[in-house]
Structures are given as structure tokens and as C-alpha cells.
């Protein structure tokens, strides 16, 4: 396993958004993804956590080139993604798919579920006979554990969990290598979330998939991932080499302290947690977490820590890591 090269290699990736505050306001720039470098190993689950607005979805869309990067490089199985023409990109997209957070808006209400599942073939210009199409649809339904009688239904006739299964089935249609899962269970009940996560585990084993799994739920990411990437305001602040590793970055520790265990004997005193995330349009020059950090010292305010990787693969961007 370790001898295999990573499926995806991301280096110094940046995405800058420009917008105006109000109709006649000053144009503002903000770096939603900032100098991100990351490997996504084959056959593993790479988890990404962080609070709202830290750049998780932007990173996901950049990796699939659904969004153009401002600078940096992404290599997918040795191919330099950002240098590919549109035609080449379309062919590559067969091998990389995305499942979106909102199962309600990611399916077109006018089409039947069968149409939705066959759409990826149309987009790729793959012609299927009626019999092949029926077979594909049935196989995909079976794969995600849904009754094929839903085929002629429309999305509004399905529950949220059923719609998310369809979203996964559609992503699987072209037999991809990489699945980018952007909060696939965020809008679902825990009972349905558990069903979907179990399904994703099964599919990964059966099909040898590689996942980039995005969530703001640290407990869920720790359960599901082999490696965990923690983002704060567009930057990677820590990479945990395995899901059980103890955090070294104070921000990761803060996330952990804010996550309640479903166990009343493990209640937390969180009176020490303070502060709000600074505006991404106006970042401090030092460490972006300094204003909220209990371990901050003067150097944290003047210089920005860079991500440094230890020999065990544990990477942290902090002048005063916890361990």
C-alpha cells in the first residue's frame, strides 16, 4: 500500500474570490483556499473538517475542477489537471465524482430517478441500448440498497435519505476512482446518516474507491476517515495521520472540546471557549487562530506558522503545538 503513489497530489493551491460589499462598495478579495498542499492516498478515506466558511466545499470543487484555481497544481493519477483541455477534462471526470450536501437541490425535479441515473452516460456521450440502460439502473439501485420500483418516480416523491442514495448511485454510474463527498449526511437524521455511512463503507470495500470526505462533524470524520485534514480560514492547520491521533494544533483541540460525546459521564466544561472566527476579508498577519488561542504568545501575532510534517506524517501549522 504505502509504495503506491497518491491518487491525487495537490500543491500550493489557491482560490481567491473577489466581491463587492453592497452594490457600490469597495471590491474585496478573500482567499477561500490558501496555499493548500495535500496528498489523497489511493483506497483510503481522507477526511476534511472545519467550521462553516473555512473552504471545504471550495477545495472539493477545485479538486474536481468544477471551479478554476487561482494558482497551484493538482495531479490526478499523474495527470496535471489544471493543464487539461475541456474535452480531456470531460473524459477525466468519469473517474472523479462528487456527492453534494443537499439531496434536495442536487436532483432535477423534472426528471425521473432513472433519467437522473442515466444522465452521466449522456454527458459522457456513452450510448446505451434500452436493455443496457435498464440493467445499469437496476444494478445501481441494488448497489445503494434501493428498491428499483423508485425508477419512474420523481425526486420529490423520495425521502432525504433515499435522495442521497440516488446522489451516490449517480456518482457511481461511471465507475469512478475518486469520490468527493461534501457533507453527504448533513441534512439527514442520525438514523439515516448511519445507513448512508455504512453504505459508503461497503461500496469503498467492494469497488476499491478513494474518498475525500468532508464534514463539520469531528466525531463522524474520526469514525470514518483514515487521515484527517483540519482547515481554518482557508488553510490546512493540521493533518492527523490516523483518526485516533491526539491533536497537536490548539484549534483542533478546540473543535474536540466543543464536540459533545453522547455520554453524560463525559460532560465538558466549556466556559473557557471564547471568540468568533475573524472575517475572511480581513485576516490578521500572524496565525489566524491567535485571537482565540489560549496558547498564543507574541510571535503568533507577528508571524504566520507554516505547515510542518513530522516523520510520523503528523503535520501542524503552529509555533507552540500541544505535543
Amino acid at each position, binding site marked *: 500500500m504505502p509504495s503506491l503513489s497518491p491518487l491525487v497530489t495537490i500543491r500550493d493551491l489557491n482560490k481567491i474570490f473577489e466581491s463587492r460589499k453592497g452594490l457600490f462598495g469597495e471590491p474585496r478579495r478573500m482567499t477561500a483556499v490558501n496555499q493548500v498542499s495535500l496528498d489523497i492516498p489511493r483506497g483510503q478515506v481522507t477526511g476534511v473538517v472545519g*467550521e*462553516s466558511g473555512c473552504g471545504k466545499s471550495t477545495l472539493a470543487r477545485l479538486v474536481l475542477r468544477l471551479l478554476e484555481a487561482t494558482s497551484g497544481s493538482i495531479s490526478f493519477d499523474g495527470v496535471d489537471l489544471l493543464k487539461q483541455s475541456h474535452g480531456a477534462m470531460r473524459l477525466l471526470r468519469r473517474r472523479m465524482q462528487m456527492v453534494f450536501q443537499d439531496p434536495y437541490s442536487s436532483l432535477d425535479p423534472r426528471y425521473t430517478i432513472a433519467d437522473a441515473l442515466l444522465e452521466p452516460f449522456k454527458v459522457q456521450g456513452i450510448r446505451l441500448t434500452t436493455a443496457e440502460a435498464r440493467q445499469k439502473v437496476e444494478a445501481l439501485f441494488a448497489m445503494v440498497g434501493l428498491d428499483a420500483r423508485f425508477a419512474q418516480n420523481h425526486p420529490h416523491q423520495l*425521502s432525504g*435519505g433515499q435522495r442521497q442514495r440516488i446522489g451516490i448511485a449517480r456518482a457511481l454510474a461511471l465507475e469512478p476512482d475518486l469520490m468527493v463527498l461534501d457533507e453527504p449526511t448533513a441534512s439527514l*437524521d*442520525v*438514523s*439515516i*446518516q*448511519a*445507513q448512508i*455511512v*455504512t453504505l459508503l*463503507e461497503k461500496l469503498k470495500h467492494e469497488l476499491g474507491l478513494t474518498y475525500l470526505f468532508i464534514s*463539520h*462533524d*469531528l*466525531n*463522524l470524520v*474520526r*469514525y*470514518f476517515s483514515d487521515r484527517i485534514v483540519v482547515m481554518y480560514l482557508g488553510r490546512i492547520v493540521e493533518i492527523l495521520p490516523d483518526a*485516533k491521533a491526539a491533536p497537536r494544533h490548539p484549534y483542533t483541540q*478546540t*473543535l474536540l*472540546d*466543543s*464536540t*459533545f*460525546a*453522547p*455520554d*453524560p*459521564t*463525559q*460532560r*465538558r466544561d*466549556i*466556559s473557557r*471557549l*471564547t471568540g*468568533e*472566527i475573524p472575517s475572511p476579508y480581513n485576516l490578521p498577519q500572524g496565525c489566524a487562530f491567535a485571537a482565540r488561542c489560549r496558547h498564543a504568545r507574541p510571535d503568533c501575532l507577528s508571524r504566520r506558522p507554516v505547515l510542518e510534517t513530522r516523520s510520523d506524517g503528523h503535520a501542524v501549522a503552529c509555533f507552540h503545538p500541544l505535543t
Partner: protein
Amino acid sequence: MALLDVQDLSIDIGGIKPLDSIGFAVDKGETLGIVGESGSGKSLTALSIMGLLPLIGGRVERGSIRFDGMELTRLPEPDYRRLRGRRIAFITQNPMTSLDPVIRVGEQIDQVARLHLGLSGSAARRHSIEIMERLRIPEAATTYHNYPHQLSGGMKQRIVIAMALAANPDLIIADEPTTALDVTIQAQIVQILGELVREKGVALILITHDMGVVAQACDRVVVLYAGRVAESNTVSAIFASPRHPYTQALIGCIPRNAMERGSLVGIPGLVPSVARYPAGCRFHPRCTRSESLCEREVPVLERLASGAEIACHVADKHEAAHA
């Protein structure tokens, strides 16, 4: 007698019966959690206590809601209006629906104190700023003058809580007060609500589907399933020894620290819609322990010596004499 005592409550909305004979009690200085999947009747329980069912074309069909000795189900609307916001406060899930976008947030808190406590001008303002400071809103005197759109989601939710506190209520009903917020902000708000209960002796009903929040903040828990109480008990008993198969399954759905991958068990199937509640035990189609009796007969809610309540034909109702 408890501050709020709900017994045998059933409601009707245009012929639909979303709540069937539910009951629970909460006293001063106590936090009661109401949990259950989406559609189980949590918000309608809150609306019933607030006397707001007529707004959605519903009514109490049977049962009683006693608050501080008053029978609320027979309370005339003008009396109810004096209770609402004054002695019973309601925090809804979406803070934006409770805030007026064109009025400064501080003045919105003033309005509550003016209406219910008869405070005027500067006294109301002082009162508001004091509450904002208690909720650890930074620079309260400045934030007082902000409009809602100038504040973050977590800050807006704190303003909504400040409005709920402005009239010194005896009972606060918080319907998913943190669902839309980041974990670090959620943790702070759960902490603040806990302090109100401990320091001011407020009675709190915390509606949530987050079992981590329940474990952190609640004293007692009512588990709703499809409009009925499945089980209610102290928070420690609910997590340490859940008895109802639904409670057990619900706890099995939550990813926990140190949980091995593959050990998450979902609940098969879906929560039924109100129009299609099954006969007998409403959980039986999804229950791994159901017997033929479960399909025919509604299990009654049995009260055990310890105060635990459980509605199941097969669950263990034996209570060991604890040493």
C-alpha cells in the same frame, strides 16, 4: 408539583393526529431534553405548550398542560398572551425569523422588557446590555446598536436568547437552538443555557436531535417516536441502560470516539408520515425485536418505580434494587 406538567396530551390538526397521549414534567432548575427523529413531533409539542396550535389550524384534543397550577389548555387567549414571552419564552430554530431586520438588535431586546416588565428608556437599555453581557456578547454596548445583518449567525442566536431572557421567564423552550451553528458556537450557547438553569433556576426544555447536546446539558430525557413517548428517564439511565429498542437503536447511530469502523448500526427504514402511522407499536416495522403482539396492540406507557417510563411490549422492565 412540577412547574410544567404535561399529561396525556393529544392534538388534532385538520383530522391529523400528530401527538398521541404524550406526557412529561419539568421543574425549576431542571433541563428536560426532547429528542427524536425529524417528524416525531418535537416542534408541535413546543407549539402546544405555547398555545400556538390555533395558528396552524390545530387544537388540543385531549389531556392537560399545567403550568404553575394553571390549566393552559383552557386558558383564554388574552391570558395566554400575558404568559407568552413573559413567563414562558420560546427560542425558535431560525434566529432570523425572530429578529426584525430594520430594528437595532438592542432595541429589540428593550421592547420585550418594556412590554412585560414596564421598563422605560434608559432602564430598558441598561437591562438589555446587562443581559447581552451575561451572554458574553463582546462589546455589548456597541453591538446593541447593530442591525441583525451585521451580526454572525451565532451572535444573532445569542440576541434571540437575550430577547427570551429579557422578561425573566420561568420556563424557556428552546427548539433546536444550535442546529444551524458551528460546533464552537453551539458549545458556547449550550453552556450559557446551562448557566441560566443553574444560576437563575430557570426550567428549560431543550428540543434537539443531537444526542451529544442531550448528554451534555439535560437532566431528564423524553424520547419521542412518531408522535408518542417511547421512553423517558434520567439522562444517565437513557445513555447507560436504554430499555426501549428505539432508544437503543438511536444511540447505536451516533459515531463516538474510539468506535471501530463498521460498528455503526443504522435503523432500517424510515420514520412513517403522520398519515401512515402503523397499527400497534408505531416502531414495529423498524424494530429488530418486534413480536406479533407489537403489530396489533399499542404498548402503553408504563411507569416504573424509579420514575422511568417505557412503552414497549418486549423491553425489560425489571428494575434491579441498586446497592
